């Protein structure tokens, strides 16, 4: 396998020092999986990086130590992994992020289910139109779930300048992302939040952000068709949206990687 047109082995040093982008890392790890001599080399290089870590040693304070030991005493440990990929040494680390994603996903699912239940209760009976809406909601929910459960899903959060927090869950492989925001400042009726993909070639509208539905969280939006260098931006626009942003973004999220 070749990385960027060169011998993948040359990436071993950069990889062992985390001096690689996420896509480079993923590609190199796929290469590692089938290359015993590479794994052997990485093992040696990691011992060298451990020495670099040791050379930077700084004695923590007593308060730091007490806090860490207390946290451990109150935290349940992970069971041993079964069938862990040999090259993913920091799988525990990833497991944490996975579980954060899962937590986020179940909050979303609860939110969506709650909204549907409220609709059903208000109507008393499920009409054809409502069934259609439920189906649409489920389809949408499936699209959201597909992104959240993508193997390379990565979550980014950023504060919104005017209040609230934006969250993007991104799958570089699928070139798709889910956007949502909580506690956005309420806008006057004449204005709405609009989402944009902002790339080197300009801004493309990515949809109007629905008002907060449940718990102050905007219904998640699925945005596909990402291109290299895209960032996600949110602007305040006249209600109904604009073909181009007419105000500076209140939040801008870099997606990292090169897709």
């Amino acid at each position, binding site marked *: 396998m070749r990385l960027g047109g060169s011998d993948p082995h040359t990436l071993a*040093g950069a990889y062992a020092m985390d001096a690689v982008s996420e896509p480079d890392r993923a590609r190199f790890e796929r290469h590692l999986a089938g290359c015993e001599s590479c794994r052997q080399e990485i093992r040696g290089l990691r011992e*060298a990086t451990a*020495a*670099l870590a040791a*050379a930077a*040693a700084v004695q923590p304070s007593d308060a730091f130590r007490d806090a*860490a030991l207390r946290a*451990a005493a109150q935290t349940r440990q992970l069971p041993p992994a079964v069938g862990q990929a040999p090259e993913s*040494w920091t799988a525990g680390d990833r497991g944490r992020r996975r579980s954060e994603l899962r937590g986020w996903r179940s909050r979303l699912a609860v939110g969506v289910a709650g909204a549907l239940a409220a609709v059903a209760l208000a109507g008393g009976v499920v009409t054809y139109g409502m069934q259609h809406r439920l189906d649409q909601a489920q389809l949408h929910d499936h699209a959201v779930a597909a992104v959240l459960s993508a193997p390379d899903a990565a979550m980014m959060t950023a504060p919104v300048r005017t209040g609230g927090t934006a969250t993007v869950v991104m799958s570089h492989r699928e070139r798709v992302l889910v956007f949502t925001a909580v506690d956005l400042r309420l806008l006057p009726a004449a204005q709405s939040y609009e989402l944009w993909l902002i790339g080197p070639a300009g801004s493309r509208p990515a949809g109007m952000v629905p008002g907060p539905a449940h718990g102050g969280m905007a219904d998640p939006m699925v945005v596909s068709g990402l291109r290299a260098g895209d960032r996600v931006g949110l602007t305040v626009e006249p209600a109904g949206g604009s073909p181009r942003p007419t105000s500076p973004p209140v939040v801008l999220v870099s997606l990292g990687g090169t897709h």
Partner: protein
Amino acid sequence: MTEGQGRRGTGRSRAARGDAGQVPRTSPSPFTGARGHADELGALLALVARGDQDAYRAFFDRTARHVLGTVLAVVRDPAQSEEVAQEVLLEVWRSASRFDASLGSAAAWVATLAHRRAVDRVRSEQKAAERELRVPSSSVAYDEVTEAVEARLDRERVRRCLGALTELQRESVTLAYYGGYTYREVAELLGVAVGTVKTRMRDGLIRLRDCLGVDS
């Protein structure tokens, strides 16, 4: 021996080591050059995986300064660094059972977790412009009074071995490891071709490994 500052864990860890004594102590340590240190850490980690809090304390006292120092080197901001270092050390406790000794020593595992988490933090914030270049020989902060003897030995060995690299190798390695930069960023900073930087990083680390006498 009295337990002075910076050696706090020694007495406790000896008591907590328990069945760690069964492990043959033959391999040289990447940390100290003393024989057996690495294997003891691995044995402690095996106890930690079974929920042994004394073993965790002992493990903490041997590795927390490496974790904090590494994170500080990359993240720079002390408050954020402490937060990240706490996360890493809690991750050690949580996922001790996931440690696979066939992939490297416990010391390397902890260092990898710490560095990875530090790099994730700075890259997710994309504050590269606010970070200054960090050259470890002059700017790694440490207090000689509280520093353990072995930590000083580590530092001197690594400094000596770094001194044996070519300038480009050394710059590539230190900017990547202590600066938290990607190889592309390092190439940009040094005004050198990307391919050259990749090669220098690998050659530099290999030389460092050989100089330190690290088992692989």
